[in-house]
């Protein structure tokens, strides 16, 4: 466990009474596949309303951790505490192709929610005029936003994002990242974003965690003002530091 904290502690983390403000508490979590631990006695705390990005090389177990937090993988040892209201957006939108977009958004909600509820959520992600469309007619970015609306309509206390921008083209990704940043600020829910894009992590997160060998190997608080500017030298510095942590040497690139 090499958890070293760089820079000043952010205001969220500094708030007293940590028990009541936690959105996620994970202690001694172990998940093995065929006897080989992918997650090994992992500790993780996420505060309410905190945006945490989880970085790591592919195969390091970050997606497994997200699936565990989403309750999709119960083959675990250790303590995992998550809010009752949580929602996931996956890398693929995973919309049910046989349901119109608005029915996809309402799928699984308790009771008989009205269509207006879905329309509001869709309007929030800028898809107000697509609520009656079949998923097959949406572009990749639109489908991903519909998936986001489906997550948000659950009014989650914890939003889990599994590389949601990974399959989008560069321009659409920038817009989607901005959208997620705005939605998070408006909703105030805790967000755990699993990504392999360091720039994305620094752009959006309060705190960036680097996962390696089944544990959180590194923690980096990002205390840049929002909205963040990727041309800010401090941004580049943080990015370079994290990339180095991930085993990518940026010295040559920066020169």
């Amino acid at each position: 466990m090499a958890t070293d904290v760089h820079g000043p502690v952010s205001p969220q983390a500094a708030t007293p009474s940590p028990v009541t403000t936690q959105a996620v508490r994970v202690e001694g979590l172990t998940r093995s596949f065929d006897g080989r631990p992918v997650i090994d006695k992992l500790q993780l705390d996420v505060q309410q309303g905190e945006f945490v990005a989880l970085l790591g090389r592919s195969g390091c177990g970050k997606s497994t951790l997200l699936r565990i937090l989403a309750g999709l993988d119960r083959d675990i040892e250790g303590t995992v505490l998550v809010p009752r209201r949580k929602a996931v957006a996956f890398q693929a939108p995973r919309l049910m192709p046989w349901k119109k977009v608005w029915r996809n958004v309402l799928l699984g909600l308790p009771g008989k929610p009205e269509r207006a509820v879905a329309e509001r959520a869709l309007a929030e992600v800028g898809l107000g005029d697509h609520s009656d469309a079949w998923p097959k007619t949406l572009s990749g970015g639109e489908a991903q936003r519909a998936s986001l609306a489906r997550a948000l309509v659950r009014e989650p206390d914890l939003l889990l994002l599994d590389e949601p921008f990974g399959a989008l083209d560069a321009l659409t990704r920038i817009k989607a990242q901005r959208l997620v940043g705005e939605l998070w600020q408006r909703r105030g829910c805790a967000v755990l974003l699993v990504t392999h894009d360091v720039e994305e992590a620094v752009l959006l997160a309060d705190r960036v965690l680097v996962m390696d060998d089944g544990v959180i190997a590194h923690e980096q608080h990002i205390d840049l003002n929002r909205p963040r500017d990727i041309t800010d030298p401090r941004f580049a510095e943080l990015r370079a530091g994290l990339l180095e942590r991930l085993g990518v040497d940026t010295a040559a690139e920066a020169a």
Partner: protein
Amino acid sequence: MSISHAPPDSSEPDISPISGSPKTDTDDRSSFDLVPLVPTSSRRTRVPRWLRRTTGPLVLLALWQLLSSTGMLTSDVLASPGRIARVGWDLIDSGALASAMTTSLQRVAIGLLLGTVIGTGLALVSGLFRVGEDLVDAPVQMLRTVPFVGLIPLFIIWFGIGEAPKVAIITLGVTFPLYLNVYAGIRGVDSQLIEAGESLGLSRWGLVRHVVLPGALPNAMTGLRYSLGIAWLALVFAEQINADAGIGFLMVQARDFLQTDVIVVCLIVYAFLGLLADFLVRTLERLLLQWRPTFTGR
């Protein structure tokens, strides 16, 4: 650079003009011809497609009529198209065809209904539950290999010679294709969508209703189409035995009197009914599967 590329490229086509030096090669390149790319619409022939498609059958029909009227094709081998049309009209006019069709359609409808219920029911049990798969799938797969037409004698012993054995044969024929396709459809539902449904908080029944069953629908429709085809086939078999009504009965009667015209009319009716059934399933597919993102032809 061009020299190193020359031997493999130019050795074959440049057999005769050996005098052509590399210099003339560059001259050729400066004076090449432009080839116009003709849009496909202007290249198309004037004759409309439907006319071209109907020409073949019409020629065939005319040939048939010609052979019949010249006496090369006698009526106890095959009646002429004109005669068939007249007999067909007579059968319609007397109401014999209508009542036969009603009887036959009823048999298919009941058999199809029973077969659909049984086939889909079994597929749901073995598709949705692992216990069901262990208990149901093996016997069904075993019975499937028995040719259902071969069971006609057994069915006559069991159910007598009334409507029951006929409906039973159709039911049996319909059950298996539906079972196989619905079962495959259920097991073929994208596990990522199931996971997404779980993450959205769907209950077990909710997953079945909103994810598994709609996901299995395309396969189920394929199964239904197969089943309909088999239903007509089973009907033809079933009606050849001890029938006292229906299209098959008409045919058997016509056979005894060597009425090839009536037999052909009955065959045409079978074909027409099959076409109608296919049209119904296509319409159903268009309504139920409009969400499908697959290629639907140009």
